């Protein structure tokens, strides 16, 4: 997933140390030290088991089933690890405190395993905080995945596996010949080993009843620490590997920002920020399409069967559809403006960074930027993927970029929905066919708001499809990004566009309207003719809205007060009847938009 350490690294290290056969204890203090080192591992494993057993249900309104084999296994694991730790606890006596003596052999390996397991637990804990009342609070986009039942089960399975390995070592030491006068330590090691095998048996039974999907085990191993790589822009000397890493790091940062926006109070959006993001997402998906076609070209050269190349081409087509849908967002945003309180300057968003990183991968010019001139040569496919091993890495970078576009669409959609509820969406008055033109901007009619939210939904769905297509290829070619799909499934963010309530949109036309679509299908490119078609589509939608409002009025439904207009300079209602307009136009002034960076 990223160049930083992941939880799997800690697991691997702990497993290696637990399984290593070091020098057997020579009895006496050495034996007691080894038993204490084993106890340290058992205590840390017990903390994992406590976390799993005490974790709340995955979602609101869900309850844990105490009778489920996995829940019983979690409780049993916690209990058996506690018992094992008690067996291994030496009796209180001044003589049994050996002080700080360097451990050796098996004891040293067990101490090392305890340290890395504790570090791994702390890594997982960075994603979850706690509220003042003690309830867990998700700090990152990984937290919902970590709280999901499948990932908790995967973690318990790892705990059981490690416990079984510790039990084997414990039994081996207990059965070692040559000690005299050590019945106590032998017995405690055997008892502890028995507890550890018991817990492993519970988990094995639960696994047989309901196996942990391999993807969830892989996802658990891929969990990184919560710290993100710092924001960085590409340099002219960055090679392909560096550009791939930069693309992935930027996508991770965007995903985190989207998660924060979705879970916390959304920051104030501006017209410029939305437009920049839509343009950047259009270009990112465009670059991804070009990069996937290059990858397909290389796959055709490296793989004897044509399937891989064809699949990658299909993913490129999906990226092309995402590009088209983001372009529709960009075009719609050029026809609205957001009334923004204050005049805060806004730094360029990280969506632009992603377009820059993917652009540097796509184009041969090492100094390419979004503001560069009109035409640039793309890199030849061979330069992007010299050999077979480079193809999965390229797919991984593209997959990350496409995956975060879906989150970007969700953020924009939610922010605009909030802006629409607050009546902050305005349109140029002349863009409305029946508007009075006393002021240049007017409140957006409902149909335009619906159009806007509709294009965002379409972009979210198209980005989702493109990410899914890339995910399939990532799984096929073994790209590191293949866990992204499992992460989304575990966090419950997959398929959100199918579940998203359309609270504002009702039956508004999707973009473009039927007349404009027909014109474009006929090959008409005249901007003037297309503008007329757009205006007629909107007039059509407005007519339907007006007719529906009049019918509702006859039915006795509450109607908007007639003649409601904005009472501020620069803004007035689009239509004095305006049946579906926002309820209130907040203060608006003829302020200059923020200067672009």
């Amino acid at each position, binding site marked *: 997933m990223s160049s930083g350490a992941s939880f799997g690294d800690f697991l691997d290290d702990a497993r290696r140390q637990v399984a290593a056969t070091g020098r057997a204890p020579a009895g006496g203090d050495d034996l007691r030290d080894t038993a204490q080192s084993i106890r340290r591992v058992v205590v840390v494993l017990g903390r994992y088991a406590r976390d799993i057993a005490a974790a709340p249900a995955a979602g609101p309104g869900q309850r844990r089933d105490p009778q489920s084999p996995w829940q019983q296994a979690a409780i049993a694991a916690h209990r058996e690890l506690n018992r094992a730790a008690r067996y291994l606890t030496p009796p209180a006596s001044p003589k049994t405190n050996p002080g700080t003596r360097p451990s050796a052999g098996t004891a040293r390996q067990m101490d090392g395993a305890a340290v890395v397991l504790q570090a791994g637990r702390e890594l997982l804990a960075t994603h979850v905080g706690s509220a003042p009342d003690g309830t867990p609070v998700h700090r990152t986009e990984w937290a919902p995945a970590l709280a999901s039942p499948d990932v908790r089960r995967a973690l318990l399975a790892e705990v059981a596996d490690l416990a079984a390995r510790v039990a084997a070592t414990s039994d081996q030491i207990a059965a070692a010949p040559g000690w005299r006068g050590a019945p106590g330590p032998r017995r405690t090691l055997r008892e502890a080993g028995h507890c550890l095998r018991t817990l492993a048996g519970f988990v094995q039974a639960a696994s047989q009843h309901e196996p942990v999907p391999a993807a969830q085990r892989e996802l658990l191993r891929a969990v990184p620490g919560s710290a993100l790589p710092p924001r960085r822009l590409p340099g002219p000397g960055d090679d392909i590997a560096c550009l791939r890493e930069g693309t992935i790091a930027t996508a991770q940062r965007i995903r985190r920002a989207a998660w924060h926006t979705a879970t916390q109070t959304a920051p104030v959006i501006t017209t410029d920020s939305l437009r920049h993001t839509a343009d950047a997402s259009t270009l990112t998906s465009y670059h991804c399409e070009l990069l996937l076609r290059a990858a397909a070209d290389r796959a055709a050269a490296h793989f004897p069967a044509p399937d891989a190349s064809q699949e990658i081409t299909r993913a490129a087509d999906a990226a092309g559809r995402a590009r088209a849908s983001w372009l529709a967002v960009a075009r719609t945003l050029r026809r609205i403006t957001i009334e923004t309180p204050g005049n805060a300057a806004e730094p360029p968003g990280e969506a632009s960074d992603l377009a820059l990183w993917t652009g540097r991968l796509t184009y041969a010019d090492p100094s390419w930027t979004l503001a560069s001139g009109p035409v640039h040569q793309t890199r030849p496919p061979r330069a992007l993927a010299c050999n077979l091993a480079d193809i999965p890495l390229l797919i991984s970078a593209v997959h990350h970029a496409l995956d975060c576009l879906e989150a970007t669409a969700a953020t924009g959609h939610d922010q605009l929905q909030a802006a629409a509820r607050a009546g902050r969406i305005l349109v140029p008055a002349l863009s409305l066919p029946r508007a009075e033109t006393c002021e*240049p901007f007017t409140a957006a009619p409902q149909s335009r708001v619906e159009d806007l939210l509709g294009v965002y939904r379409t972009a979210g769905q198209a980005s989702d499809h493109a990410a899914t297509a890339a995910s399939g290829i990532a799984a096929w070619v073994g790209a590191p990004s293949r866990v992204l799909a499992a992460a989304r499934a575990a966090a419950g963010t997959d398929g959100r566009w199918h579940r998203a309530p359309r609270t504002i949109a009702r039956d508004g036309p999707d973009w473009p309207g039927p007349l404009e679509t027909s014109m474009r299908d006929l090959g008409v490119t005249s901007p003037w003719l297309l503008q007329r078609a757009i205006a007629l589509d909107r007039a059509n939608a407005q007519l339907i809205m007006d007719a529906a409002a009049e019918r509702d009025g006859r039915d006795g439904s509450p109607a908007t007060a007639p003649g409601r207009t904005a009472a501020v300079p620069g803004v007035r209602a689009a239509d004095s009847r305006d049946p579906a307009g926002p309820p209130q136009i907040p203060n608006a002034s003829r302020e200059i938009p923020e200067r672009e960076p």
Partner: protein
Amino acid sequence: MVMTPVSWQAQRVRAAAGLAEVLESAWRAFECMLAEAEAHEDPATPLFPAFVLAATAAASGRDAVLLAPSLPWPPRDPQPGGGQASWPGESSGAVARALASLSQALICRLEEAAGSAASSGDQDACRFAAGRARAICDLLAGARDE
């Protein structure tokens, strides 16, 4: 020489007299640039990224001009493009060069207007719009026919 919508707008921008006329011609010019750039947002051509970014810059420039206090409103002719038909035979490269030329005219007139406008609202609007015109010029100048 055939008069295209873009060259027609460039002529109007150059001929505008006084702040109000400059602002109105700039509004129409940005609307024209937006429509032309969008009509050429074709991903099959390498000019696609430049046209996408230029179209958004034109929309931002238009919005800035619309917020200028001295912009006469409502306009005499409510059609931003003045009813001009596009020239369908133009290549993307030619359109890009024409838009760059129009944006150069806009930069010149809007910077002049910013320097002479009395109100800070007009000054800010003209400066911001000139900046957007400069961005369009940087994006599209030097485009070649593929």
